[in-house]
């Protein structure tokens, strides 16, 4: 049996996932990262996007993650400390859609009415990524 990774996805509210994997793919700030067992020790930032955990059974588990850090320890453990993390099944499509529209509207009015443009953009990105996680679009 090939080596596996111990993956933990941790948010301030709870531990979202704790299990074995043969491969992990997640969104870094400068592109997608892929981690296999025996990866070198590493710490990176995590942007908002889709985290794909390939379990030993070959089953691909998808999560939405946003803003945080990933740490590879000893080539056998990957820990995510992220602001938000949700299992694909938990994502509320309607809510994400609503959030996307609200963010869009705020971005439009940002200049005129002093809404925080950066915050609106982040909200927008989070909403879009939630939708992507759910709809199994582009990774």
């Amino acid at each position, binding site marked *: 049996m090939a080596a596996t990774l111990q993956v933990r996805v941790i948010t301030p509210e*709870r531990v979202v996932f704790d299990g074995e994997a043969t491969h992990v793919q997640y969104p870094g700030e400068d592109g997608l990262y892929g981690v296999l067992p025996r990866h070198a*020790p590493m*710490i990176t930032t995590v942007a908002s996007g889709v985290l794909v955990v390939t379990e030993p059974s070959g089953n691909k588990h998808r999560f939405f993650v946003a803003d945080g*850090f990933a740490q590879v320890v000893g080539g056998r453990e990957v820990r995510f*400390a992220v*602001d938000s993390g949700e299992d694909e099944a938990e994502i509320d499509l309607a809510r994400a859609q609503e959030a996307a529209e609200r963010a869009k509207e705020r971005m439009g009015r940002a200049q005129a009415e002093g809404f925080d443009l950066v915050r609106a953009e982040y909200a927008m990105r989070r909403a879009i990524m939630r939708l992507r996680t759910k709809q199994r679009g582009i990774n």
Partner: protein
Amino acid sequence: MVNIRDLKVRIKAVGNIRQITRAMEMVATTKLRRFQTRAEASGPYTNEIERLVKSLAAGVGGGEGSELFEVREKIKSVGVLVIGSDRGLCGAYNTNALIAHRQWEKTQAGREIKRYVIGKKAMGYFARRKLEVAAYFDDPILEVMGYRDAARLSDFFVKEFVEGRIDEMYVVYSAFKSMTRYVPTVFKFLPLGQIEAGAGDGAEGSAAASEQKAAGDLLLLPSPEVIFSQLVPKYLEARMFNALLESLTSEYASRRVSMKNATDAASDMVGDLKRVYNRARQERITKELLEIVGGAEAVSG
């Protein structure tokens, strides 16, 4: 002689109060459990962030986050966030936090103090004493604050600090030690003291140390500076979130105890009143009997 009807009314009134306090005790117990679970659930995240900060602190000194570590030479104004409750009937919870605040304030002689307040009760205290409050955070209320709200709060103070409106920042909160022990605590939020790399005791310390040893070939992407500059605010956010959750847990623990005491006191009172009532009733019956006997004797005699 005691008025029997008045006694009856009082017994009923105290009994009603007992029902209310018992219900409040039960509500507090449920909420306490909920907040305690939340506080525990945030533990792994806080540990993780702390571990990251520690394993990075040694390797990266400079970077953008470093001004948050800098101790300023002249401290003109200090900020303090006081976390109180929105509702009363929670024993000495607010009083204790405010005493801690007052004692802290005594150590800040000669400095301008900017007070930031959470909780209606704490706000009321400052208003009564006519002490100026720089900002009162009541939206959202403490009870429904999530991590994002804590993060926003933390970022607000970071901004105040970075832009020079405050030179130091403190937080007064109630640390939750156990169901019966909650300690009002003041801690320095900003600037961050030196975070010792690999510090701490026992397994945690040695784990951090061994991670540190490997730091030579530790990949840091996109760059150590970027990671550090993002990690430090997260660290502060996590601390803020933790302070809010612990205060909330303490509040409900305190409320539960005080409501339990109130219920017990009401029970005692009902017991005492019942005894007085029964004696008074017995006395009246005896007196009436004597009167009847006396009257009968007078007639027959």
